[in-house]
């Protein structure tokens, strides 16, 4: 037996699908001296990979997850372990049929071939289905099954051939040693390894291993029940593993998947059954494997009946038995997305956890690229582990959200749907005032933010037809026409918006200017008091963040970014702090609260409560200064994400309520209303063409394509500069455009309103793809109440990115005519920005 390694470049812990994919892709990128550990035996060490149902449905509403799945399918095919079977999601209810139409939208957006089927057509493909109880199906021919254990073996063999990997099975990790904030040793039952990097790919055990290093991987092991029934006479002559399409019985949250002569029935319908990583039995103590726990029959009984209903003859065969039944463990996270990237707590300790078989190889490639280059081809925005704030890593939060999420696995989840569990984690000082005003709260980054205010109901009458209604329940879900009315008040009088969810970082020290210059695209060597909106780029010139930075002193800056991005941005800033301590970083998020006051009357109104001069000459757009309101020291920033005259007013949290009351009282003479994030985040923003990180801005696109490149480039070097300079010289292949919907009328005569992520088609009904293979889809959709139009933002191939071009948008399996209004970042409303600068 070879001796156990004493040192390594990287120790990969866990030899399930993820660990194998990690070493494979790191090897491809030139890494060597790697060690792969697992406490179990190979090829099946006993984690979730070993009992996975191993099927891949390619269509998901999330672009990121779909791209990862498509990449995984490609890789599984290259390894020769993929069997295409096709997959059908069947609907038993009209609501589900609508969801299947929505899936058609997503499949077209991401370029996957799918079809809607009648019950009869479902029966033709899957003859065992009782077509009388279904209304239709959604068929994706590219769905298939894989041999994930074989894939793992092949990947390890690749590394062995390259002589870059030592594999040690039956080796348990006992401790993780951290030195100077970075991982330095992995202590195992067979010896200690000095290492530069470690990756936790331990599935349901990941939190336990992370904890040894003082890091946090917020997931919980949870039960997914599965049985296998057979032998079935219909499958008697099946050659190989699968002959019939996999059926997802979406309304009962179950799937039926052929496996040789048997049918596997899996369920996400039972009560959430959560476990603790430390309570999972050892390999020796388990009768099957540690993640195949004893089956609890009573939880599965209702699903048995439903499965029998859908496949009465097949599953009703008296000769066929339930040959295998488990409570299989899998990993659930508070928001359903994987946990990828370097842990926030420990340098060089990476997480690759909460990954399904269908994304494993794609994620292996993504994380390997990220570790090697500092960025990846597919944007890890939604999976980046640093998205979670501290509160979200608590057991209370994880268990609450995963319990709520479990039954949504096959659920119909509206894109704006809000969580109901563990709310009110972070509230602004204005919260109780807002509650009195009937605020409907949406959550972001744990903050409760009013989306709109029911107290503004009366405005609907005031504005009449200028406020559009949404006649279809789906389009109007988690939405209110009041948002559009609040918007109109903001454009005609004045409105106040709670912006406390902003993440605020103060930077100071002798190295502050150089540091900020290095981080940002735009010129930061500006006069003290000036504010600059700027993108932050990845090393290859894609978007990492976009935010506003104020120069608060010769050696100090204030960074303001969205709450949802705060966690990721904070890590990015901290990771790049100079080692010489010349820059001090302070997170001021909780010490400040913010109210935005905007509208043509904003100046008069705020002026009425301050002695400081707010005239245009004294307080220019894009500047910040301290003023006094009611004796309080206010940091006022004249800027606007809704393109309107006004200020963001920052005050220390303890004085927040007084600021709210002061402004509210003063505003009564000016017809002020509170406006929610519905205005701030969508209607106000979209008609001004302002971009949003995670929607328009992602690492796949650069500032030139997004229309955010400035005329001049600063001299100072910055992250991504080389790529940015190169992109500036080339002609972009796509341009971010603003489109308007010409006709909302569907075939049934109901006006429909797109929600985002819909594909843009040419007039022949073909999806648009740019020169780099990127598909055009709606990044944001929303009303422009000021103009009466409904607007969409989308990157279009340059040949289509011309005002006046007629195109189609595909929504719920129907096409609607649209017109390109703007190519680039010119606002659709108030194109000269006269309001904001008035």
């Amino acid at each position, binding site marked *: 037996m070879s001796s156990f390694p004493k040192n390594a470049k990287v120790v990969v812990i866990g030899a399930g699908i993820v660990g194998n994919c990690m070493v494979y892709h790191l090897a491809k990128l030139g890494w060597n001296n790697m060690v792969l550990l697992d406490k179990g035996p190979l090829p099946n060490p006993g984690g979730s990979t070993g009992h996975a149902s191993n099927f891949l449905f390619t269509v998901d509403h999330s672009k990121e997850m779909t791209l990862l799945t498509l990449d995984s399918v490609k890789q599984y095919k290259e390894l020769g372990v993929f069997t295409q079977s096709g997959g059908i999601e069947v609907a038993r209810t009209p609501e589900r049929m609508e969801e299947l139409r929505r899936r058609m939208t997503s499949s077209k957006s991401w370029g996957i071939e799918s079809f809607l089927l009648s019950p009869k057509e479902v029966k033709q493909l899957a003859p065992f289905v009782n077509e009388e109880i279904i209304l239709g199906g959604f068929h994706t021919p590219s769905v298939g099954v894989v041999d994930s254990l074989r894939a793992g073996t092949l990947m390890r063999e690749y590394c062995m051939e390259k002589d870059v990997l030592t594999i040690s099975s039956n080796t348990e990790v006992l401790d993780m040693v951290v030195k100077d904030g970075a991982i330095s040793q992995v202590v195992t039952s067979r010896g200690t390894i000095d290492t530069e990097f470690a990756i936790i790919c331990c599935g349901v055990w990941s939190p336990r291993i992370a904890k040894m290093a003082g890091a946090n991987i917020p997931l919980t092991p949870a039960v997914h029940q599965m049985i296998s*029934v057979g032998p079935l006479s219909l499958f008697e002559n099946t050659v190989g593993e699968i002959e019939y399409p996999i059926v997802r019985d979406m309304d009962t949250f179950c799937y039926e998947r052929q496996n040789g002569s048997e049918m596997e029935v899996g369920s996400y319908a039972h009560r959430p059954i959560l476990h603790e990583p430390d*309570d*999972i*039995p*050892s*390999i*020796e*103590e*388990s*009768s099957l494997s540690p993640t195949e*726990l*004893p*089956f609890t*029959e009573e939880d599965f*009984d209702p699903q*048995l*009946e439903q*499965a*029998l209903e859908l496949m009465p003859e097949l*599953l*009703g*065969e*008296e*000769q*066929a*038995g*339930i*040959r295998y039944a488990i409570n299989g463990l899998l990993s659930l996270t508070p928001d359903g997305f994987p946990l990828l990237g370097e842990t926030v707590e420990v340098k060089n300790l990476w997480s690759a956890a909460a990954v399904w078989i269908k994304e494993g190889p794609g994620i292996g490639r993504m994380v390997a690229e990220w570790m090697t280059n500092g960025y990846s081809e597919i944007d890890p925005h939604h999976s980046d582990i640093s998205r979670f704030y501290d509160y979200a890593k608590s057991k209370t939060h994880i268990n609450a959200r995963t319990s709520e999420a479990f039954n949504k696995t096959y659920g119909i989840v509206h894109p704006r749907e809000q969580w109901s569990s563990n709310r009110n984690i972070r509230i602004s000082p204005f919260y109780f005032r807002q509650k009195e005003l009937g605020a409907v709260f949406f959550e972001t980054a744990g903050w409760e933010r009013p989306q709109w205010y029911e107290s503004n109901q009366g405005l609907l009458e005031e504005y009449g037809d200028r406020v559009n209604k949404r006649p279809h329940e789906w389009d109007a879900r988690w939405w209110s026409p009041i948002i559009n009315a609040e918007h109109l008040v903001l454009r005609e009088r004045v409105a106040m918006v709670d912006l406390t969810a902003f993440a605020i970082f103060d930077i100071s020290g002798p190295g502050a200017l150089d540091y900020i210059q290095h981080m940002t695209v735009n010129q930061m060597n500006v006069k003290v008091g000036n504010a600059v909106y700027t993108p932050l780029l990845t090393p290859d010139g894609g978007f990492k963040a976009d935010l506003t930075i104020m120069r608060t002193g010769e050696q100090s800056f204030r960074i303001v970014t969205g709450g949802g991005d705060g966690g990721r941005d904070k890590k990015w800033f901290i990771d790049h702090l100079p080692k010489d301590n010349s820059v001090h970083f302070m997170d001021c998020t909780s010490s400040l609260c913010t109210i935005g006051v905007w509208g043509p009357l904003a100046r008069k109104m705020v002026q009425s409560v301050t002695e400081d001069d707010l005239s245009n000459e004294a307080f220019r757009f894009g500047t910040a200064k301290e003023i006094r309101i009611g004796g309080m020291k206010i940091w006022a920033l004249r800027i606007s994400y809704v393109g309107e005259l006004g200020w963001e007013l920052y005050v220390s949290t303890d004085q927040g309520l007084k600021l709210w009351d002061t402004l509210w009282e003063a505003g009564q003479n000016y017809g002020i209303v509170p406006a929610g994030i519905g205005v701030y985040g969508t209607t106000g923003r979209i008609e001004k063409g302002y971009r949003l990180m995670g929607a328009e801005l992602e690492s796949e696109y650069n500032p030139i394509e997004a229309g955010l490149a400035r005329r001049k480039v600063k001299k100072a070097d910055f992250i991504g500069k080389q790529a940015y300079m190169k992109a500036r010289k080339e002609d972009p292949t796509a341009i971010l455009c603003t489109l308007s919907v010409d006709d909302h009328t569907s075939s049934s005569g109901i006006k429909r309103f797109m929600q985002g992520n819909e594909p843009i088609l040419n007039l022949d009904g073909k999806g648009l793809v740019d020169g780099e293979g990127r598909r055009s889809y709606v990044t944001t959709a929303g009303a422009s109440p000021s103009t009466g139009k409904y607007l969409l933002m989308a990157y279009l191939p340059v040949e289509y990115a011309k005002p006046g071009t007629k195109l189609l948008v595909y929504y719920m399996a129907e096409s609607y005519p649209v017109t390109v209004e703007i190519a680039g970042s010119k606002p659709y409303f108030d194109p000269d920005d006269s309001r904001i600068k008035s």
Partner: protein
Amino acid sequence: MNILVCIKRVPSPGTRIVLSEDKQEIVTKNLGFTISPHEECAIEEAIRVKEKFGGTVTVLTLGGSLASEQLRYAMAMGADEAILLQTDGKEWDPMATSNAISDAVKSKDFDLLLFGNESADYGGYQVAIRVAYALNHHCLTGVKSIEIDEGQITAGREAFGGMEIFKIPLPAVVSLKEGINLPRYPSLPGRMRAKRKQIEIIEPIKLPGGIETKQFVSPPELGSHVEILGHGVEAVPKLLSIIKELGFIHK
């Protein structure tokens, strides 16, 4: 032909059995429960006899309320009725168990009472014999084949490399051994039927006396031992001698 099958709910452990701190019980927190394998074969045998001759199959167990899971499993396989001699779930020794069973079934007219040869956990080997004695029935143990013909049962058991064949009249008590058949898995419709069936619950009285468990002791774990016999053709002679040693070939 009315057949009674007596079964026991037993934990389904891994290779390591964990004992409680006071060594009074096995820790079953992470374990599933099953029916002793000999008894699963007894259920299968009973169903086969019923399929051939008609009649009913009744399963019986003594245990806590959770033991109804095993009764339902047996009914999902094809048993018709079930009786639970419901206790607080603590282990009853063979004497107490057999007393309870005899009391419960003496008034019922079973032609054949099938048991497993011994339970998978405690392995007392006694309950079948004690019940036979109490009911004054003929009894055979360790049986690996049965045939029924005109009021009598022909049963065989392994002995000295061959089979001993016995004929005894019915009613009779027979304890079976794993290998007599390959038990079926319950079908989906079987599981649904079983779910809807009633279980007769009897609360037995535990008589004093019998065996008392003092504590459990885990035997020292045997580490796995790997010996490489050789590579390629050179390994064949050694391999052959081991196969012979194991009795798979005799020449």
